[in-house]
């Protein structure tokens, strides 16, 4: 278990379980997620497609789909459980505490309203919009668009999303997420639809803004390279739980969980050396996930204990936690 004795911890997800109701029964997707973000920290959440990254972050904002249930767990934002908040309180978190950049910029922007209309609304409904005149609101919006390096903010405010390129839309989404002060920004794979040079621009921009404003960042990505460049600490997720977390430098110097190793080996290297095999097997069916360690059917090192018992996250030193009996030497 990660011990939280940090006073400056702003988000603390504890033992979070999320299931989806489906025709075939409950899909038990999240299986006890533990994740913590400190003030000013840039955290990466990495894992294969379908491992539950977006589900985790949607739970934080309480915007899960209708068919989701949360049978267990806590999400503490400044010590207060988001899952137990009344609608007024959670609205305050959404408009003042945490903002999110979604995976698909086109899904986040409404095509029938101008960028201006949408940005003004964001400002109006946040705390910082209170008692502000129209001009003041517009000034804030213009400033935010400048901050994401788009020239000619006045024109952008009058544009509809369809009139902007993919890269511009992505930056407009960032501008909307930072137009009012928040403590935590959640970015779900921003830039995956862009090419590396534009992606690089978007990432540098995000990092700069987060540092300048003293915000915390959760960066969701399935690219280990992106996580390495963007974050201070990484959480590696497999099939609904965190299997390893460490400071970014430590994780790349000394990765331990067999899943993390498998992911790292699969990345083609700029130094060459040919292609790796890829991790054997695939993400489980969540309707009947494997008992014990959910990774065991794909693990080269799995032993009997792994079939029966779920390994807890344990400290192996330097704030490096690994959930694996083999690494813990207790197999």
């Amino acid at each position, binding site marked *: 278990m990660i011990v939280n004795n940090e006073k400056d911890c702003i988000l603390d997800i504890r033992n979070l379980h999320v299931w989806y109701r489906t025709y075939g029964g409950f899909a038990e997707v999240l299986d006890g997620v533990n994740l913590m973000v400190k003030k000013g920290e840039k955290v990466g959440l990495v894992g294969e497609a379908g491992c539950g990254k977006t589900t985790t972050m949607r739970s934080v904002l309480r915007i899960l789909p209708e068919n989701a249930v949360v049978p267990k767990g806590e999400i503490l934002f400044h010590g207060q459980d988001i899952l137990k908040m009344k609608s007024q309180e959670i609205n305050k978190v959404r408009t003042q505490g945490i903002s999110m950049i979604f995976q698909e910029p086109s899904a986040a922007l409404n095509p029938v309203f101008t960028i201006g209309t949408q940005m003004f609304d964001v400002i109006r409904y946040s705390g910082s919009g209170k008692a502000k005149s129209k001009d003041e609101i517009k000034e804030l919006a213009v400033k935010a668009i400048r901050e994401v390096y788009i020239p000619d903010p006045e024109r952008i405010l009058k544009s509809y999303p369809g009139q902007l390129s993919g890269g511009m839309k992505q930056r407009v989404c960032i501008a909307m997420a930072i137009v009012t002060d928040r403590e935590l920004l959640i970015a779900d794979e921003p830039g995956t639809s862009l090419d590396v040079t534009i992606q690089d621009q978007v990432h540098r921009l995000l990092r700069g803004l987060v540092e300048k404003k003293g915000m915390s960042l959760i960066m969701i990505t399935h690219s280990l390279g992106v996580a390495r460049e963007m974050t201070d600490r990484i959480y590696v997720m497999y099939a609904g739980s965190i299997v390893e977390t460490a400071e970014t430098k430590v994780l790349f110097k000394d990765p331990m969980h067999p899943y993390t190793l498998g992911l790292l080996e699969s990345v*083609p290297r700029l130094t060459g050396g040919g292609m*790796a095999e890829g991790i054997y097997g695939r993400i489980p069916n969540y309707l009947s996930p494997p008992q014990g360690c959910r990774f065991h059917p794909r693990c080269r090192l799995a032993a009997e204990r792994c079939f029966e018992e779920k390994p807890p996250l344990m400290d192996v030193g330097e704030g490096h936690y690994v959930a694996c009996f083999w690494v813990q030497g207790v197999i």
Partner: protein
Amino acid sequence: MNSITAAAEETILRVQNLKTYFPVGKSGGTPLFVKAVDGVNLTVKKGEIMGLVGESGSGKSTLAYTVMGIYSPTEGSIIFKGQDISVPSSRRSLSVKKDLQIVFQDPGSSLNPRQSVRQILELPLRVHRIVDRKNIEEKVVELLRMVELPPHYMYKSPVSMGGGERQMISIARALATNPQFVILDEPTSALDVSIQAKIINMLLKLQEKKELTYLFITHDLSLMRNIATRVTIMYLGKICETAPTEEFFRSPLHPYTRMLLSSIPVVSEEEEELKPKKVVSTGEIPSPVNVPPGCSFHLRCPERREVCMEVDPWMVEAEPGHFVRCHLYS
């Protein structure tokens, strides 16, 4: 003269001054065009893996579709195995169609969701009479085995499969006709690294076994480093650099190539050291409807000079086999 004929012998595909423009309305009476492919010269040798890399919208898929005959070229020629095939697909011979296949960028939309895998794989077998009617099922099973899927997958529908498996089916379909040349349009971009590794390994095995030639379209230079024999970079409808892989990564010449290389997120210090010094990328990709005069990259180029804003550079051979289109070298 002799060496030229020898080189020509091993060339399987030669694209010359190829242009594919799309009309996109008018502005004040003059018709406007997206110059998606704008004067491309490219040769692919038999048995090689040519990596075609470029950012979104640079015209990679359009080039592929034009070679396949899905789009008609506005200008230029396509020579495949010595035969001019610069005509629409409907006027190409059956044998050209058999030898030239493509795996589409988006496996989701290129497979008919109302068909079973069996129906999808049967069609090319029937059209090209690859096997007798009575042996078709056997051949379908063989194709599935080739992409490492069990026989019962023939009864599945593509919608019930994951992205990786759908991509395997697209590959099986492309290989059903025993082609010689396969265009792979970003076959793994939408997938995780682990599935990507599996698909790439399979493609490499098949290439060796069946002596295939690949034109491999991708965004991913690290991937090309590991599998391509040569790499070509495309920007706004034009080729800006081509070189053998080793040489390409050892001494990238075009400023855009260096910008691409320096922007790649990598996972180790050793790779970090290989990257050219950070070239900060600024500026937007100009719209392909309104390509600026001079070099199309000049708006974003850190090494821009006066001439770049006025004169479009031409291709020069900076080192043997290493071609670059930039005023720095001409």
